């Protein structure tokens, strides 16, 4: 089985992230919370004054940046997988029903989506954090609550396009029930779109978590997350730019990898994109 470079990159990064997240305790060279006030602002190993003890250097409290990044991946992976899955399921189910059954179902769902999207998302998450208290569960819930509409709108539109095609009419004429037509005929044609949406959402979830951490609305303050690391690093960007750049690179890389994963999976499993090779 040949794996395209895109799929390889995407899969590689995400498998790596999951591995890091689960094995953080064993993989990380230091305790992410351990302070070493003699070694604050140590530069990365390859720069002047860097040591191989702290590969990516240390922050203002002398905590090891590499270890903090590795521990931060746990939050990122949790959010990317759980939030994207929940938002995806909620939005997809509603979008499928609205698009396929139309009528009052569509009217109700579409109006809810319209009203929902009129709320500013940042405000919505701050309100949620205020009600539920800061923490990982709040971040996940905030992402689901904000982003299910993205799935819902796109899936609804795609289902309406698919429904107008004659294979759906044909399925009616061979006596399939609406439920069978939706699940057996329409859904397989929406799956490639779902793959793209889901992987995009993984990237978005990671960014949103970082933003909420940055605003201090995510997990407890001293726990390492990529967003909180950027926030802390921001204050020292002139002395130690790597404090901020390291978590940023992680975020950018995981978002890029999410998009590559989506493209790669589509190309791999979509018979319409698979060209016959002689």
């Amino acid at each position: 089985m040949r794996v395209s470079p895109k799929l390889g990159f995407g899969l590689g990064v995400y498998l790596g992230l999951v591995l890091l997240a689960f094995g953080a305790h064993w993989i990380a060279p230091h305790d992410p919370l351990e302070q070493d006030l003699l070694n604050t602002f140590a530069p990365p190993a390859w720069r002047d004054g860097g040591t191989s003890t702290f590969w990516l250097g240390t922050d203002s409290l002398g905590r090891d940046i590499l270890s903090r990044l590795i521990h931060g991946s746990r939050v990122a992976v949790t959010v990317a997988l759980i939030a994207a899955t929940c938002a995806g399921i909620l939005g997809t189910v509603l979008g499928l029903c609205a698009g396929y059954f139309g009528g009052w179902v569509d009217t109700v769902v579409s109006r809810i989506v319209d009203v929902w999207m009129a709320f500013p998302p940042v405000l919505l998450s701050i309100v949620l954090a205020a009600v539920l208290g800061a923490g990982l569960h709040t971040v996940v819930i905030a992402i689901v609550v904000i982003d299910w509409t993205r799935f819902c709108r796109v899936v609804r539109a795609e289902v309406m396009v698919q429904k107008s095609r004659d294979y759906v009419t044909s399925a009616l004429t061979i006596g399939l029930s609406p439920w069978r037509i939706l699940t057996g005929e329409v859904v397989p044609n929406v799956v490639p779109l779902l793959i793209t949406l889901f992987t995009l959402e993984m990237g978005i979830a990671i960014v949103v978590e970082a933003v909420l951490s940055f605003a201090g609305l995510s997990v407890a303050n001293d726990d390492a997350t990529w967003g909180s690391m950027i926030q802390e690093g921001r204050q020292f960007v002139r002395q130690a730019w790597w404090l901020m750049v390291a978590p940023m690179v992680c975020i950018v890389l995981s978002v890029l990898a999410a998009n590559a994963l989506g493209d790669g999976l589509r190309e791999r499993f979509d018979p319409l994109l698979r060209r016959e090779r002689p």
Partner: protein
Amino acid sequence: MSTMRHTDPVLPVLEARGLRLHLADRAGARWFRKAPRLEILRGIDLSVAQGETIGVVGESGSGKTTLGRTLLRLYEPTDGSLRFEGQDITHAREERLRPMRARMQCIFQDPLSSLNPRHRIEDIVAQPLLSFGLVRDRSEARGRARQLLERVQLSQSFALRYPHELSGGQRQRVGIARAIAASPKLVIADEIVSGLDVSTQAQILMLLREIRAETALVFISHDLSVVRALCDRVLVMHRGVVVEQGATDAVFARPEHDYTRDLLASIPLPERDPNWIGSA
């Protein structure tokens, strides 16, 4: 149901009387108001018997495709009556229609749109067999599907392919194989040769000639030459009304309605005629 299979030969398989249909005009819809309703079919009378092929001709907007879909009860008529094998199905609920659908099938205009792009050819053809419970299991269905593909002159090698890997003519054969899979009593063929090259078109028409003895066939087309080559009777539609109908030979030899004459005069035959094009 099984008693209904032996239809009396004089009794038409399908009979429509004064069929009318209104559809909502979505383009004309305004906020907070119901979409205006357009009358698409304005009182159509039509009947087809076993072994008979009837052509429905008309230009775009004549309502011929909508008529085909109404005859299959994909739309519910607003007025008139529709009987299939003697039973009134004008307002029958989908649950009652479902078992009957095995005996009324459709071949669609655009096979790329009517074949699910994510199913393999053999599964597409096997689907009606499974859905109507005509086979015991999937493997029997696939075996039958391969026989059907052979019947429409597609080799076994196509069974495992996807629709987009086939040519237009091959796809249309798959559409025919699926339509005849459940041995229907009525087949509605909607513009099924319009996008094809003449040579492929001739092949598909030959295939239709073979299957038309076993079923009642409603052949919808804009092409009068094709209708003449295939149909026993013809029905000319214009703006939701049948302007002329009769035996094909009679209608073509002595068209009575101006519109029919106009249609015939507009067909460019492949022979030289400097006067045909006329002047404005």
